């Protein structure tokens, strides 16, 4: 994987206009803020879509949720598409319950996320 992240602790790669960012096993303050920084960096560099891959994520705590809400805000301000992929059932239910899915599409894997991105493009 060509890791484009400037933060060694966050893995990220780009596919076309989309940046794929990999969340860690526990999305809390520390790891969440790294993700947020990376997302903002990708948006500033002109990415039109962000895919956050939760394949390794077991748990998202309240700070993690708040940080993801911040990422949603940032993506909306940049009119960029935000997709969460590989979200486990428990976390998907949490995102659903808290209304995050109103702003974010959930994809079962990266391929699906990438096709959602390409569908949205003119």
């Amino acid at each position: 994987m060509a890791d484009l992240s400037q933060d060694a602790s966050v893995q990220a790669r780009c596919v076309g206009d989309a940046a794929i960012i990999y969340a860690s096993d526990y999305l809390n303050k520390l790891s969440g803020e790294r993700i947020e920084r990376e997302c903002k960096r990708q948006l500033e560099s002109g990415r039109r879509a962000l895919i956050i891959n939760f394949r390794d994520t077991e748990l998202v705590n309240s700070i993690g949720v708040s940080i993801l809400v911040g990422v949603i805000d940032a993506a909306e301000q940049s009119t960029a598409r935000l997709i969460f992929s590989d979200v486990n059932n428990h976390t998907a239910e949490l995102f659903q319950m808290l209304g995050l899915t109103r702003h974010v599409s959930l994809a079962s894997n990266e391929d699906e996320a990438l096709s959602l991105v390409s569908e949205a493009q003119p």
Partner: protein
Amino acid sequence: METNNQRLLHTFAALADLGQEIANTSDFAEMLRSSFHLLLGSVAIRRGAVAQYDRQRDTLRIVTSRGLEAAPDANFAITRDHARELTSSDSSLSLQEAAAEAARFMEDHPALFTSGEIQLLLPLVVHERLIGVVLLGEKASGEAYSEEDLETLRALARHVAVGINSHHLLGEVKRKAEENQRLYEGLRKIYKETVHAFAAAIDIKDRYTQGHSVRVGKYSEVIARELGWSDDEVEGITIAGYLHDIGKLIVDLSVINSPERFSAKDSKEMSRHPSAGYEILAPISHPYADIPLMARYHHERMDGNGYPDGLKGDQIPPGAKIVTLADSFDAMTTDRPYRKKLPLADVLEDFRANTGTQFDPQVVCAFCRAFLGEIQGRKERRLLNLLNRNYDNVESVTPLLNRLLAEFDGGVMTASVNN
């Protein structure tokens, strides 16, 4: 999982995490930021702020925010009546009232918020005191706040309030402690200045020994430091040196200033001064231990032939033994009405002859070590600076000092009588 259970678990987890965040007393700003993040994340709120109440200035100041345009440290005026209303409504504020408070807040400060940006205002109250408010914007779900949300947010806000209040209390305790320390230092300074004034008064009374008390204090300080006493103990012995002759204030002036050696009658009058000194010093609460005892016993001797109580050996407090040597050293190295100062070699021979009978060997050795250290340039010149006014070629006594050390060097004497 059922949504209600999921929500409960998420709230419990937020409360548990919040407890940990609030325990972070080292970084208040970070504690607040993280706690507020947790509160927002519990219901997925898009924006909001925490404002701290300043009851002196009647203002609310934003101390942390997320997603709001308002400046991070913006101040808002709030009336006393409004603050009281918020305080009393803390636990009873309904959803409608919290929304009405938010609307009122935005009306009061239209320049800082866009319409509808703040949807709820929750007061932060601890022990019936307003600590601040939490301002909350829309939920990520876009739905209106529910009573359930309000309960969750109230519970979390209470924790945030306690965190802010604890920080405030800790700050107050720290400020009080610093203030007390300053007051204490001030009192110590006043005490030392008073002691200096007393020392000057004692020495002025005896025109032949001007500066004696201050020199005895300084010699005592050097010896105690050489013996490894703590800074506080060294300060105490210095003060004791300054005050050791305070009892002379009640001795007849004609006796003190007699140009001849004391008669038996005069000696009896003079020998009252250690006990008199004790009587003067004992009622005072000194910041250092045993100062009255050092004045009382500075004419005691190791062999028990001293006065006023004829104590011997370890019965004599260590501090008094130091003052005894310092007192004798200064007496022998300054001119007296009935004799000139002695050559330094004679002074050290006197020490040698009287170590064990008059002087404690450990004190004598400490004095010799300090003296040698200064001659050899290993120590700051304290004794030498005091002696150089009266003596040339002080270095010539090096062999004598070495001999004294060879004969008497022993263990370490501590400040406490019992140690």
